[in-house]
């Protein structure tokens, strides 16, 4: 497997994720972009594990487990917000402004 193309794809995915988080206003889309970034990192780990040994792959399992937990909590929060405010537009939520 070629390392270069794999890292290029990973970087592309990560940039798309960052762009999504920065530019989109729907919370669910932002959430999906975060997942995209996580998976980009996972791809990097797996690609590098080919050369550096299996630790990278182990970490990927951890990331996936944490991401699953995060998705569960995150979607629950969004459900609660939606029930409360009838919208998921992230710009509507600025209660923590100092």
């Amino acid at each position: 497997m070629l390392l270069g193309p794999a890292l290029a794809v990973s970087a592309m995915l990560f940039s798309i994720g960052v762009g999504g988080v920065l530019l989109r206003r729907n919370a669910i889309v932002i959430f999906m972009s975060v997942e995209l970034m996580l998976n980009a990192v996972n791809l990097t780990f797996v690609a590098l594990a080919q050369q550096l040994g299996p630790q990278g792959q182990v970490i990927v399992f951890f990331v996936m487990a944490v991401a699953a937990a995060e998705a569960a909590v995150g979607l629950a929060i969004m459900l609660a917000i939606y029930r409360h405010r009838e919208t998921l537009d992230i710009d509507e939520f600025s209660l923590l402004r100092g």
Partner: protein
Amino acid sequence: MTPDLPSSVQLVWLVAALPLLGFLVNGVLSFVRPLATRTVSAVGAGVLVAAFLVAAWVVSGVVRGHAEGPYVLTFWSWMPVGDLAVDVAFQVDPLSAVMLLVVTGIGALIHVFSIGYMRADPSYARYFAYLNLFVFFMLVLILGASFPVMFVGWEGVGLCSYLLIGFWFEEKANADAGKKAFIMNRIGDAGFLVAMFLIFQATGSLTFVDVFAAAPGVFEVGGPTIELITLALFLGCAGKSAQIPLYTWLPDAMAGPTPVSALIHAATMVTAGVYLVARANVLFALAPIASLVVATVGAVTALFAATIALKQWDIKKILAYSTVSQLGYMFLGVGVGAWASGIFHLVTHAFFKALLFLGAGSVIHAVHHAYHATHRHEDAQDLRNMGGLARHMPWTATLMWVATLAIAGVPPFAGFFSKDEILARAFALGHEAWVFYPLWGAGVVAALLTAFYMTRLMLYTFHGPNRTGEEERDHLHEAPWIMTGPLVVLGVGSVVTGLLNLPHVLPGAGWLEHWLEPVTAAGMLSGPEFHLGARTEWLLLLGATAIAAAGIGGAWRFLRPETLRPAREATPEAGWQRVLARKYYVDEIYDAVLVRPLVWFSERVLWKVADTFLIDGLGVNGAARVTRFTGWLGTRLQTGRAGTYVGVFVVGALVLLRVLTR
């Protein structure tokens, strides 16, 4: 260095422990059973009598011991810090032996007197607790074997003095008088502390034995260090012993119960300064300028206070100024290097002044009860409300006349010999330096005034017509025997203590001087010498007698008790008499020059500027304001919008990556 301890001297701890025990018992009783007068009297006076007996036993050991150096008893180590090693230790030598007998002996008599005088007081147990505690601290003061141990006693007697002056603290004037005494003593104590620091710096020790042994080698005669040390010590003495400029607390201290005035403010505590100078005679002998200051302050105080006493009407105020004046004599004595004479006058003065105060207490007791019986509110201490009391209280009158003759310097009463000896020594030094002649002159004039004002006091109190009041006259009675008994003992002492140290021209002369030689010899070596021919000495003795006679005769001749009006109807003095009656306005001057500027400075500068503006405004509230402002700056970053956070986060992560991977 220290000779073998006789078994009797080893008991000296008991002398101090007994009054402490009395304090603890009476202190507890004052809370638990404040009206258990029988127990309190038995404990309070009992421990003092027991302490006196033990003290006599200890002194007998000193007499039989014939030791060269002092007996030093070390109990435990108190402050072992680096080079400084201070032990809790007592020192028994001829000087502390004399003081031991005076303090416990006169203390016991005054405790017995107090049983009668304070009988009706609701705080009876508290009174005896304080009085016992005072005696304990006084014994620590005179027995301490080092400056710090002595200082503990020095501060302790100051505390008890404060507590007892303000004993009737329900009246603000009494509480104020206590505070005044405490604060003025603090000024002097600062001097004592500075002296201790300097002594330790110079000699590396604070123990009397070591310091006095090292002093002649360390200090050169008249060097700046030793002059500074002795002057600082004398500042402490001036505070404790009420000398100019710190004397004004003593007349106010008369606000306390009269036996307290007798014990603390006449016989014992106020003489602590004289004791300290005599104890540190080695240091003072090395410091001629400081010694001259001591002698000058003493002589000026003796004269100054005597003039004030001329025009006072309060019987205790007269005696208070008389005490200040007599303390001046003692300082004149130790200032001219006549250590033994100063201590001699201390001893005789303790007897006759305690007698005068207790006699005055007996008089006040009688007049107070007379007014109490008729429910009139008059001043029971004002001479103008007395007169003719000799008919009602013959014992008190007779004994107070004995004390008056003693203080006036009539031979063969005690005061004659002790006062004359101090004046003779000052006169003898006049050959060395003319400056001592004016000091001697001041002492002679003060002696004349002493005879005059004491006769005035006696005349107005006990002779002439009675001015107490028609109804009250029937209620004037002699005090009970428990009060007159101690007076008799003190009266005998006022007559015979003069024999302790007769002038050189008489047989059996100089016994006390010889007894104190182990203590004073070192100071004598470097101090001035005395040369006085027998002729001169006789002349001085005759002159002193003539002066005493002139003072008494003058008062008898010029004062007319018949013309006095009771205090309520009396007209205020005018002219120079007013200046004397108002005590030269010294209190008012101190108030205007020191107290008011200090209050002004504290209020305007320390409170309004330093505290309110600087500390509160800039410090406390300023720090809060700075914190709040930086916090506000930080909140500007918190937009609450997730987009901003992510953007900042991404930029931050990129910057970090760039920095870390360079």
